[in-house]
């Protein structure tokens, strides 16, 4: 912590106060944003924190002028938070920032126009980040983390303030996305439902009015939720939107979208090109794609095992596991085509014992009853068109289109 003289401290604090009040008077949102971005660790904020530490009681300075004391409560909490932040007391910093945020939001409500919307975004972002840091501090001290949850409540309050008829309503989607990030981190994704319902059904919102960058983030998270719920067509629509409209320079974000979109596309019978997997470093999907292309069940199992932890963490394991049926379909088709080459007249008859032999070669041990069971499922799900001649232990394939393509629809729909 740098040494600061009383005089210099006085100067710095007064300068900040002037900037803050000036920003509000002149509705200078970018300036206000800079004054509130703790996480930017800007030199001016850090030097202000040092000054506050030296001066001890900045409220004297605030009270000195009517101009400053109008925002006395807001500034007092803000200063306290900044000081705690500088000292690394993140729980204290969070608590003071929460008070600041509440006071700021009250003031924001009174400003008729939406001039301070971006500054409000900064407040929402900062409170979430501070809450995460505060919770880390709590858990490292053996205490129960609860600040991120509290930040979630505050964000909901902000959402409520923006959910009105005026121009401020275009900010609601940004706050929604902050809520998503909060809930996903907490693992309470069920709480997303109510805010999604507001965005998508409330009449005050016109989805098209929202800024594109917020729509991209929104579609990413709601797309992920659709993946969890296995609504693949909806997941495809949303994640594809996010992919198409995401800033192309933000490769990490694009990679994240693809991480969830690829299993969805595979479930719809669409595969990613190798170049795509290479470009965005999604090697974990390469063997899965190959397995589907070839009908190689052993490769699929191997691929799932090899990256089991990764797939489980992102929640796509079950989606990929279910691709097994499609790989079976591909394998059956290969057997059929191979049979056609040597004996076209009887190619449409797949003997269960031939299938069993192929499976055994792929290290899948099944007796004929189990093979029959799998074939029944494939037929039931319309992956194979035909019928089972149980007595002769043969699958008789339809002469027309015995292996219907998914055509962008999920299996069995």
């Amino acid at each position: 912590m740098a040494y600061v003289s009383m005089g210099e401290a006085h100067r710095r604090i007064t300068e900040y106060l002037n900037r803050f009040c000036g920003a509000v008077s002149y509705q200078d949102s970018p300036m206000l944003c800079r004054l509130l971005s703790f996480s930017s660790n800007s030199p001016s904020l850090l030097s202000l924190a040092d000054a506050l530490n030296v001066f001890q009681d900045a409220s004297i300075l605030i009270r000195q002028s009517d101009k400053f004391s109008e925002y006395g409560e807001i500034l007092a909490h803000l200063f306290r938070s900044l000081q705690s932040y500088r000292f690394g007391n993140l729980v204290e910093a969070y608590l003071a920032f929460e008070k600041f945020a509440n006071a700021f939001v009250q003031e924001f409500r009174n400003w008729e126009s939406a001039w301070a919307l971006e500054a409000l975004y900064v407040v929402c972002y900062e409170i979430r980040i501070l809450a995460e840091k505060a919770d880390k501090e709590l858990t490292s001290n053996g205490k129960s983390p609860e600040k991120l949850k509290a930040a979630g409540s505050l964000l909901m309050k902000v959402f409520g303030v923006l959910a009105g008829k005026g121009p401020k309503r275009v900010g609601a989607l940004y706050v929604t996305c902050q809520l998503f990030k909060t809930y996903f981190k907490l693992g309470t994704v069920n709480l997303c439902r109510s805010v999604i319902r507001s965005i998508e059904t409330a009449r005050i919102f016109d989805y098209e009015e929202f800024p594109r960058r917020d729509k991209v983030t929104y579609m990413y998270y709601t797309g992920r939720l659709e993946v969890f719920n296995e609504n693949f067509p909806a997941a495809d629509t949303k994640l594809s939107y996010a992919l198409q409209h995401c800033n192309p320079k933000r490769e990490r974000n694009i990679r994240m979208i693809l991480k969830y979109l690829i299993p969805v596309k595979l479930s719809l019978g669409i595969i990613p090109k190798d170049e795509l997997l290479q470009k965005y470093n999604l090697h974990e999907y390469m063997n899965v794609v190959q397995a589907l292309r070839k009908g190689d069940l052993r490769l699929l199992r191997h691929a799932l095992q090899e990256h089991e932890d990764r797939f489980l963490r992102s929640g796509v394991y079950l989606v990929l596991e279910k691709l097994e049926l499609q790989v079976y379909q591909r394998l059956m088709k290969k057997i059929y085509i191979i049979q056609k080459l040597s004996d076209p007249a009887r190619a449409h008859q797949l003997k269960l014992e031939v299938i069993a032999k192929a499976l055994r070669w792929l290290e899948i041990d099944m007796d004929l009853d189990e093979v029959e069971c799998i074939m029944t499922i494939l037929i039931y799900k319309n992956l194979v068109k035909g019928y089972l001649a149980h007595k002769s232990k043969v699958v008789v394939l339809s002469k027309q289109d015995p292996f219907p393509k998914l055509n962008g629809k999920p299996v069995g729909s």
Partner: protein
Amino acid sequence: MAAEQKATKEEVKMDLFEDDDEFEEFEINQDWVENEEQVKEVGLQWEDDWDDDDVSDDFSHQLRKELETISADKK
């Protein structure tokens, strides 16, 4: 009791730092230019007609050999 509490704390810790895939923030006051290139690129990323009748790959060759040994056994 103490062991239980510790266990829940471990669980809580796990949940706390979950979500490796948090979307990065976009700059607030900047918007990016969307162009035709980007939209076209998406179309070039996926294949939906990969399910062909081609059995010239290694896997298919080996499968064919495997199936032929069945008919050989039968003869």
